[in-house]
């Protein structure tokens, strides 16, 4: 039966068993595992938090240098390859890539939370308002996308220009040569799969709690696991059906419609909200963002330690506790992959 499967056995079975182990730990000792992991997390953040920030800074600088230097003219594919999609539809697809569960979940939550508990300003003040929006922009801005850009660039460059398989290991080809097919390559790919799996699972967890909250509001369903579990089962079943019946086209139409509806929702808020103020705020936010871009890139509050940085900028995002920068570190692109691949 396995003959019919198209798999890379070490990676497939490696990834599945690691996921199973994590799952067992999480189910059997939720409390203990939680303690252990959060102890590990805080010690890593205490010692290496700076490294995460520095690495993201490097990624951003690197992709910008690649694009503006001579390298910028190299093609992601053979020199005579032509883009598959027209420029406009390509831009639209990237636009869709920015949209997903995370944006629905944090749209109100993240700015509000920062507003009430800003890193340095007085909570609820004008300064807090300013800080809230800058920090939100920072977490959702070009830094997060620099991480996706690194992985995407590496995949596309070595996948299409060197004709290597479309996996993470191929990105290491110039360094490892044919050894990418050995244990190192397997490890990298397994890592990527496990990271993606848990990234998506957390994202799905978020989605379900939000659906539950919405149903609670709409029809009074209580917010409880026994509501959420059937919801996960139901929606996963839908996803599975779409996979089985090859409704890829259907899913594509669905996600395009979804994007349009999301944009309409945004326009609705824009209109019923303080419209002129919002445009003004937008310009102001961009200005604040640009102004603090460099500082925030490297700001770890080294001289005035605050728990805020570990809690937000460095902690996992997309997932439960917000700020998605380093969650992106853990499973880049795939994360974006989640909202991304959809359309």
């Amino acid at each position, binding site marked *: 039966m396995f003959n019919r499967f198209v798999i890379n056995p070490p990676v497939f079975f490696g990834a599945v068993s690691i996921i199973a182990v994590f799952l067992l730990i999480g189910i059997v000792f939720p409390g203990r595992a939680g303690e252990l992991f959060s102890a590990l997390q805080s010690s890593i953040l205490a010692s290496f938090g700076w490294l995460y920030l520095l690495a993201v800074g490097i990624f951003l600088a690197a992709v910008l240098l690649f694009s503006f230097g001579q390298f910028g003219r190299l093609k992601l594919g053979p020199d005579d390859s032509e883009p*598959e999609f027209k420029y406009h539809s390509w831009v639209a697809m990237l636009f869709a890539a920015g949209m997903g569960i995370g944006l629905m979940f944090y749209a109100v939550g993240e700015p509000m939370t920062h507003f009430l508990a800003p890193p340095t300003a007085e909570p609820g003040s004008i300064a807090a308002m300013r800080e809230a929006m800058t920090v939100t922009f920072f977490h959702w801005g070009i830094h997060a996308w620099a991480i996706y850009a690194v992985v995407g660039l590496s995949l596309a460059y070595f996948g299409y220009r060197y004709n290597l398989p479309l996996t993470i290991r191929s990105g290491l080809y110039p360094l490892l040569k044919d050894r990418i097919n050995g244990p190192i390559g397997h490890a990298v790919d397994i890592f990527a799969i496990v990271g993606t799996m848990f990234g*998506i699972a957390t994202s799905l967890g978020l989605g379900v709690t939000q659906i539950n*909250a919405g149903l609670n509001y709409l029809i009074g369903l209580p917010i409880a696991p026994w509501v959420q*579990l059937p919801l996960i089962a139901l929606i996963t079943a839908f996803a599975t059906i779409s996979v089985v019946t090859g409704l890829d086209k259907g899913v594509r139409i669905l996600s395009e419609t979804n994007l349009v509806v999301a944009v309409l929702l945004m326009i609705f808020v824009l209109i019923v909200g303080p419209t002129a103020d919002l445009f003004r705020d937008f310009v102001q936010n961009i200005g604040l963002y640009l102004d603090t871009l460099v500082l925030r890139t490297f700001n770890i509050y080294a001289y005035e330690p605050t728990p805020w940085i570990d809690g937000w900028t460095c902690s996992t995002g997309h997932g439960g506790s917000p700020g998605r920068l380093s969650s992106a570190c853990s499973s880049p692109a795939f994360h974006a992959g989640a909202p991304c691949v959809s359309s």
Partner: protein
Amino acid sequence: MFIARISRGRTVREFVTAVLFIPAGFTFFWMTVFGNTAIFVDTGIAAGELGAEVARDVSVGLFQFFTYLPFTGLTSTLAVALVAIFFVTSSDSGSLVIDTIAAGGETETTTLQRVFWCALEGLVAASLLLAGGLGALQSATIASALPFTFVMLALVWALYVGMRADLAQREAHAAVPQVAPAYPASGLTWQRRLGLMLHAPSEKETLAFIQKDVKPALEQVARELTERGREAFVEEEESGAIALTSPAEDMRNFVYGVAPASQKLPAFSAFDAARSGLRYEARTQFSSGSKGYDIMGMTRDQIIHDVLIQYERYLLLVQSTASDWSRRRPSMTFRPRRKSKGF
């Protein structure tokens, strides 16, 4: 991965600028609209109540927010539907990404596999939600981000090495005088040449041509090369593609490949346009990924002649920069792997 897949044929510059700024720009606007309106509502009519709700539970934030705007029922329902559909699409696409990596970069996998990953995602999300292991998982993800940060730094370095090598190769290419490839059907009467030009070969004819003329020609050259102490062999693929490879150490292999390719027929009349058939060609492919051309209609001798021209060009390239080459571009051997795309 999605952003990589849609970007084949784009330049590095296009890719980086678009990936960094388009999704981030959309997100900025989204966050401004929802975030600033929320803060506006909270400091205005809600008098701090919205903030208190968000602080208690982030997932209800959006719905609480909608209660302060008109058409609450409609917007909340839409929001629930949006999250649910994003859930389906991200589960669907996430399993696709994971499936591709687990299959060693193969995108054409079996349905059962995709169902497996899809179901596993739901299972992981559900059991973590049930066991309350979501927090543990998030901590684990942050902890695991550390090694992945190093992998990503390696990816950046590998990209730099690969791009530099490609640029060096391109410069070397430019330094070698361009040799005109043999012209298909030169030496025939002009009437036959015209006939060949206007004739649109079918797939069958192309495959037959590759078998009948190209294969013996390549085999002859391979035999001769082997006799002269240069290893060379001819490989065939199911797709009908065929390639002469002469492996080399410390530099690119010499590859002269011929693959069937199709093109839309140019329509010279409305009648043609309505039929819009495909014209099949026997296109050459080289290890550098450089431009291929159609050799359909060449005689066996002409093909051999053409191979020699390309071989001479290859030797010139290799020798002219031999000293440089091994230093600047160590064995970037092109190992074609993917079946779906010829070599």
